[in-house]
């Protein structure tokens, strides 16, 4: 009698003290193919149990076909009736597996990169799933104005949705100094966007998006990263996903120093820890190795907004630190204005290059940095009084600062006027070298007298060196003290 399953065994002598009848075949794995000869194991004391009817004999032939058909029908129906994919887009099982390993892969740098990449993507998806939305917490920040010719290419970079109100934290370098009208979320949705705060010390910018549902955003990390901790820089640049492992070299509360294991991260790149929580955003030029904690940065920026200092003030001047020959030449303590942006508040107030700013409001300013800090701290739109010295005389002007987005300290200067001679044509090479002036720089004025060509005016020649020269070089304007003139 052929039996399927576990009962087809030959018995063997009693061996157990409890009286169980021991079968030859073992539990579930090793089965002889010899049909059993009727011995069975007892399930209670030693009485042999009658052999049960063999069900397999009943499931045969037509019934098997029907069973197979029914099973196939269930499978087909299940596939056809499958509901549309849920928006949460969970990862399939095999993709989830690396996460458990990636977290403890810190000892294997070579492996960490791949694990972290997957973790990085997963981290972003975690934040999506956490808030139940398909949008990932990244924003491609761009402007709806075409950049002027000659300007750097359109800004590229992104920020991280870091709060439930739809605020994006990013770096000003990501916007190239251009105004912002729209932002593009990573699913392609465009929303109106407005810069609501700018912190000049760090270059961080807060952008408010309109129409982003409450609760969208990345969960913020609950603790600081440790020095040497691996985090993930994740986002998108130029339409391509970018995920890179980054090490936190040091962290001192309000700034992290990072070192990218591969490539340079673009400004405003969000950093995530391996739990998928948003840690910081990276800065832009000049230092790509700084990152600012999101939580603290949000607090500071909101404080600025509350105090009415959402934007640093600017009056449209460039200040030049001066020492040595310049200080001796000027003979006065103050902040030297080396450029005035046309049409700006300073230009409208009558401030000129060469003026020495000696006071901002009630504050006495003795140097360029002090004056710059004082000016940026003025309230935008509130008139302020500036005291300056020009041609030996002191005067006071009223100027109304305006809020500015740009953190770049040097605005692009206008092109030099036609006819402005080269420095090497005006002064001796040795004198230029001694003054640190490039020979190809354009001379705009000497001792306050605009220069439209050669030679130097007789009055200037009679005055004699050294001369206070205003120069234009590589989109910047600055003053220098130059000695002997070039031989005619």
């Amino acid at each position: 009698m052929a039996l399927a399953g576990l009962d087809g065994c030959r018995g063997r002598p009693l061996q157990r003290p409890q009286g169980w009848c021991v079968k030859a075949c073992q539990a579930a794995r090793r089965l002889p193919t010899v049909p059993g000869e009727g011995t069975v194991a007892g399930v209670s004391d030693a009485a042999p149990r009658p052999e049960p009817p063999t069900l397999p004999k009943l499931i045969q032939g037509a019934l098997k076909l029907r069973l197979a058909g029914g099973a196939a029908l269930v499978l087909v129906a299940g596939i056809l009736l499958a509901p549309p994919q849920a928006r949460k887009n969970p990862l399939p099982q095999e993709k989830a597996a690396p996460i458990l390993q990636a977290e403890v892969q810190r000892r294997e740098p070579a492996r960490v990169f791949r694990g972290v990449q997957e973790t990085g993507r997963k981290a972003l998806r975690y934040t999506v799933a956490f808030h139940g939305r398909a949008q990932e917490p990244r924003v491609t920040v761009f402007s709806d104005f075409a950049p002027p010719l000659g300007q750097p290419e359109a800004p590229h970079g992104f920020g991280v949705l870091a709060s439930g109100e739809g605020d994006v934290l990013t770096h000003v370098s990501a916007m190239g100094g251009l105004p912002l009208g729209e932002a593009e979320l990573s699913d392609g949705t465009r929303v109106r966007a407005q810069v609501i705060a700018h912190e000049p010390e760090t270059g961080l910018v807060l952008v408010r998006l309109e129409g982003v549902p409450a609760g969208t955003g990345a969960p913020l990390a609950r603790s600081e990263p440790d020095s040497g901790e691996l985090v993930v820089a994740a986002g998108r640049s130029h339409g391509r996903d970018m995920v890179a492992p980054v090490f936190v070299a040091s962290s001192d509360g309000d700034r992290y120093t990072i070192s990218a294991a591969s490539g340079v991260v673009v400004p405003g790149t969000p950093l995530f820890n391996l739990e998928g929580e948003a840690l910081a955003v990276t800065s832009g030029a000049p230092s790509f190795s700084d990152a600012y904690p999101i939580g603290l940065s949000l607090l500071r920026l909101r404080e600025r907004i509350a105090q009415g200092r959402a934007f640093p003030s600017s009056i449209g001047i460039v200040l030049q630190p001066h020492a040595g020959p310049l200080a001796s030449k000027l003979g006065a303590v103050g902040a030297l204005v080396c450029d005035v942006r046309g049409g700006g508040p300073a230009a409208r107030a009558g401030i000129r290059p060469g003026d020495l700013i000696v006071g901002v409001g009630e504050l006495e300013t003795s140097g360029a940095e002090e004056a710059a800090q004082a000016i940026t701290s003025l309230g935008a739109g509130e008139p302020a009084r500036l005291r300056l010295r020009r041609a030996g005389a002191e005067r006071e002007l009223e100027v109304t600062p305006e809020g500015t987005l740009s953190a770049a300290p040097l605005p692009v200067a206008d092109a030099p006027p036609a006819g402005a001679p080269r420095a090497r044509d005006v002064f001796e090479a040795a004198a230029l070298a001694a003054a640190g002036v490039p020979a190809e720089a354009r001379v705009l004025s000497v001792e306050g007298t605009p220069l439209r060509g050669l030679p130097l005016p007789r009055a200037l020649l009679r005055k004699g060196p050294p001369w206070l020269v205003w120069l234009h070089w590589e989109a910047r304007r600055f003053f220098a003290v130059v000695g002997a003139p070039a031989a005619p």
Partner: protein
Amino acid sequence: MNEILSVGLILLAALLAGHAAQLLRIPEVTGYLVVGVAIGPSALDLISHQNLQTLGFLSEVALGLILFSIGSIFEASRFLHLGRGVARITLWEAGSAFGLSLVALLALGEPFWVALLLAVIAMETAPATTLMVLHEYDAEGPMTERLMAMVALNNMLVLLVFGAVTAALNLGGGSDESLLLLLYRAGYGLVWSTLGSLALGVLLGLVVDAWAARARESGEAMILAMGVVLVAVGASRTLGLSPLFATLALGATVANTSRHGGALLGALGRADPPLYAAFFVLAGAELQVTQLGELGLAGAVYVVARAVGKVGGARLGMRGQDLPETVRSNLGLCLISSSSLAVGLTIQIRGSFPQYAPEITGVVLAAVLIFEVVGPLLTRRALLQAGEARTTPEPLKEMSEGAPLA
């Protein structure tokens, strides 16, 4: 280290571990797990995380085979005889583990959904570990019979309850989809993962039956059996079904419809040892010893509540059944092991509900480490006390057709 070398090392290490375990009179499973921890990333790091990832398929293959053989327990004649009693004990032990864990974690102040998900995972009993210990000690008897059926029923129950809980979570989560669609999706997921998996297992089992008659030699039978198990696991993953249900159903179908089921199972039995050894060594390598440090109070409470629930619940479930006292007092101890399904559910939680994942992962991984080491030891002890185990494992015998057995 390349993967081939890793596999060789795993097998040799398993061999050493098996011998050491016999000397120390502990289950081989424990030896495999311990040696896995030793050569894995937690200690000597001879098997790296990369290796574990690449060799993950070996674990899946072995698990599929284990579940297939567990499914063969559901031969109708045997099951009709045992069924009601076993189902009752399973409901009691799983329910008690669930209830005690839930109450204890809620009392500790854990969030509701975290406590609920952990309580569901607490219901699970490891099929592979339990079966391996039974197999090693050639266990036979009423406790063994019930244990194997209970392990299968337990895992099915856990998947059903987990499916229901996650469906409820999905419904409760914030979404802008219509309620009807959400309900449909939740219901579909639950029904598809059970009914669909059963249908797949039944269909493949019948295909095997049709083909098995042509498999004349044991080698062909082995290829057929292994191939169909792998197809079941792979197809389940592709279709979003449950590999556990599908392979259980496959085993049950083969046991109940095929005259050649015995031959297939016997053929598979020859291929099992290296796969099982590799499975448990890999399982040990994946255990993160450092997780123990993150067990915390919640984890400790979870471990204790689960153990008490399992043992006490089994005892309560056996009331009114005609069973000897040795079975009553020892059956619960065999239910302590917890491993692959618990880890698998945790991975699913990480994917679907990451907001609960960190805490759940920390507790489960640490608890699994404890249960995987302690569980086999308790199972062995229970088998010995119930008199259903040999004290030394029986050496492998050649099983050939018609050969008398000593």
